[in-house]
């Protein structure tokens, strides 16, 4: 008498695998790979952000203008009318002999389309470079947001790019509204630091000036961060930007106000030193995200490349600004396209509800199968239990995420996995009723039912794959559990039950009561 056959051995091995690898997830042990719960089950924040990539292009143009200005100042090369007009830098070189020198400098900047009309230069970005800049902006934004969230100390933040301009941010660690708010503010802060020169000649007219008048002088009007009535007229092209900041820390001034000390890299330090040396007696506006935080008088050349931002921060604000400055500016602002936030209590309710559904669905199918098919039903049920363990184990191994629709997927899989056993047992019953011997009925039952089972599983699998490709978040979770469930059910419901029958065959043959085994009359 042969109790073990290869089918049964594979089945038993897969049950062992299923139990061993599902234990960490089921008992929530500290070690071992576990299924992670989706945001809809454990609570958290999901956001889809859109990067306004055009801004990155605009800011690159601005940087080019800054370089032109710095170069011409440095080389004492006379230019006139340096300004930005609809994504192009325009200026005129005053001395014809300086043109080769200017050309040489401009040729070092990559991705530039230069057009010259006599002495007037128009610098634009090439189409290729615009596309590259936009792409880089998204990559950089992902990097920056990830850095900021990491420093903020949230558990397992996930920041991923989606499509051309979008970013998906998932924060499972968020539990309270206050946390959520802080995280959102941290993400959205552009942290665009600019050091700009105040136009001292015209600043006294700032309150009567329109922005187009200011633009005609190459200036812009900025408001004070604490008092919008105080305005400054500053040169449109900044002296330095936050990209040259290498460190930023919170400190306190004499009156115990929170301030931020920042350190510049070597190029930044040189430019800053040169500028302050030339501008003694004038004011320097410290601009963060388009607001003037302070505009101190330059008393002497500032070497060493460090400076400070003060302006009535609270300590936590200062902390966030410092994090944002350290992790770099967002190359462009982001807007919120989609947001889903689930409180932890709702997640717990969903887990409870779906577990009840899972258990009662299971019980119903169980009882029904035993009443209808007797021992064949018991065998099918063994396969069903094994299937649930194996689904959990496989999901844990791949680190898959379990979502609420995913739970529904497991519940549904129970209904569908039992399908294979129903098809097989019906075939066996038919054959037994036709008077075929049990041994042959089981063999033929399996082989006849195989085609139908494969067809039905493949069609469901096809639908699941399409769902995975086009679904988002929780829906993808459904597609995953249902696909895994279908595949593992082939192992348990077909191979596993067949193995059990094979090893029980001698006993079934001895036992003349087939009603007990297959529920036939």
């Amino acid at each position, binding site marked *: 008498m042969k109790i073990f056959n290869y089918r049964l051995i594979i089945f038993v091995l897969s049950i062992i695998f299923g139990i061993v690898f599902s234990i960490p997830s089921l008992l929530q042990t500290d070690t071992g790979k576990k299924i992670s719960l989706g945001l809809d089950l454990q609570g958290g924040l999901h956001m889809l952000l859109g990067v306004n990539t055009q801004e990155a292009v605009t800011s690159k143009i601005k940087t080019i203008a800054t370089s032109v200005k710095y170069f011409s100042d440095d080389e004492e090369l006379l230019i006139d009318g340096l300004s930005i007009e609809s994504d192009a830098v325009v200026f005129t070189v005053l001395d014809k002999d300086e043109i080769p020198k200017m050309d040489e400098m401009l040729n070092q900047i990559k991705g530039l389309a230069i057009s010259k009309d006599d002495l007037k230069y128009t610098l634009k970005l090439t189409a290729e470079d615009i596309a590259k800049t936009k792409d880089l902006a998204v990559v950089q934004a992902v990097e920056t947001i990830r850095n900021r969230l990491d420093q903020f100390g949230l558990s397992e933040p996930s920041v991923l790019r989606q499509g051309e301009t979008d970013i998906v941010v998932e924060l499972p660690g968020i539990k309270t509204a206050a946390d959520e708010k802080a995280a959102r*503010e941290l993400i959205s802060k552009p942290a665009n630091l600019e050091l700009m020169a105040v136009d001292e000649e015209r600043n006294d007219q700032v309150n009567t000036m329109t922005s187009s008048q200011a633009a005609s002088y190459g200036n812009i009007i900025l408001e004070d961060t604490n008092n919008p009535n105080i305005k400054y007229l500053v040169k449109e092209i900044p002296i330095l930007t936050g990209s040259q900041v290498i460190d930023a820390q919170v400190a306190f001034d004499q009156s115990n106000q929170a301030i931020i000390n920042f350190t510049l890299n070597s190029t930044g330090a040189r430019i800053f030193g040169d500028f302050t040396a030339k501008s003694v007696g004038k004011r320097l506006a410290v601009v963060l995200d388009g607001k003037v935080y302070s505009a101190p008088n330059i008393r002497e050349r500032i070497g060493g490349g460090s400076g400070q931002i003060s302006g009535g921060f609270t300590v936590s604000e200062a902390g966030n600004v410092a994090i944002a400055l350290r992790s770099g500016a967002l190359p462009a602002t982001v807007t919120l396209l989609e947001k889903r936030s689930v409180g932890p209590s709702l997640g717990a309710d969903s887990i409870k509800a779906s577990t*009840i559904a899972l258990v009662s669905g299971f019980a119903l*199918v169980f009882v029904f199968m035993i009443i209808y098919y007797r021992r064949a039903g018991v065998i099918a049920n063994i396969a069903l239990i094994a299937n649930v363990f194996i689904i959990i184990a496989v999901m844990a191994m791949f680190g898959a995420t379990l979502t609420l629709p995913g739970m529904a997927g497991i519940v549904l899989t129970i209904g569908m996995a039992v399908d294979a056993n129903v*098809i097989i047992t019906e075939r066996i019953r038919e054959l037994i009723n036709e008077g075929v011997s049990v041994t042959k009925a089981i063999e033929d039952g399996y082989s006849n039912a195989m085609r139908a089972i494969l*067809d039905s599983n493949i069609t469901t699998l*096809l639908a699941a794959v399409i769902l995975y490709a086009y679904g988002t978040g929780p829906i993808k979770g459904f*597609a995953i559990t249902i696909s895994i469930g279908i595949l593992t059910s082939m192992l348990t419901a077909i191979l596993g039950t067949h193995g059990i029958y094979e090893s029980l065959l001698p006993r079934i043959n001895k036992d003349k009561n087939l009603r007990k085994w297959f529920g036939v009359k």
Partner: protein
Amino acid sequence: MEMFSTEKIYDFMSKRFAFLGLSSFLIIASIVLLLTKGLNFGIDFVGGTIVQVKYEQTAPINQLRDIFKETKYSNAVISEFGAADEVVIRITGSSSDLTNDIADEMHAILAPSGKFEIRRVDMVGAKVGGELREKGLIALGLSLVVMLIYVSFRFEWRFALASILALVHDSIIAMGAISLFSVEVNLDILAAMLTLLGYSINDTIIVFDRIRENLQITKETLLEKVINLSVSKTLSRTTLTSLTTLFVVATLLFFGGEIIYGFSFTLFVGIIVGTYSSIFVAATFLVQFKFSVEDFKVKEAEKQKRAKEKARNRAMYEQGTV
């Protein structure tokens, strides 16, 4: 236990016009519903904001409606959600500003209404809604095409066409029910519809598989008789698996909570319609398409003759007699 005798052959085909009539009625009614009442699209597909609030006591819905009239969200729709202490507030439109959050605003607006907890805030921008809608339609269309390709590959073209018609039949009626009961159509409904496509076609395939099998072995030349035999033989299986699946879907429907109600509802209706169509409707299309048993047999015989000839040629070749 046996629900249907495996011996008995039911005469489905003689009543086929009654079933076709019923199906036509259901389809026409569904289409009329879809065209007049339409689908109640949720925020996933049209954009908007949903706020789910749980109170410590019974939610003061009327008071809430009054409160919202005074705010800029005067068009907010407030309804009970699953239990008396829980409500959802639906607002058209969405804010793309990261720093000013709707949840904060809601806290301020709802403050006078009692003790509560904001449990869920879903906000979908109009652009994302449009994209999701587009993707959803593509997914549905693609599934139908993929199923059609698969079935054509496995069966004769009239079988394929009949099964796809049955699939369209099931989807239209399921959507009609979604419209009739004003179920909110979100991404989960799409998932349910796609699952149904897979489920419903596999029921049909199993019946068709048996028809094909019987066509090969039977001496009967009347298609109606072969269909009756095949549908009767698979009747137990079709109803049983539908029943077990229906059991679990019913438990999801009753115990799964309000959030997956729409999903479970769609599956519930879809499984019933899908089972009905694979027993009573799908095979009748074969008769309507004038599928001929005799032609099938001639073709099968030719196929077998060719196979035999090939085998003989091969044998001769291997024996070296060619």
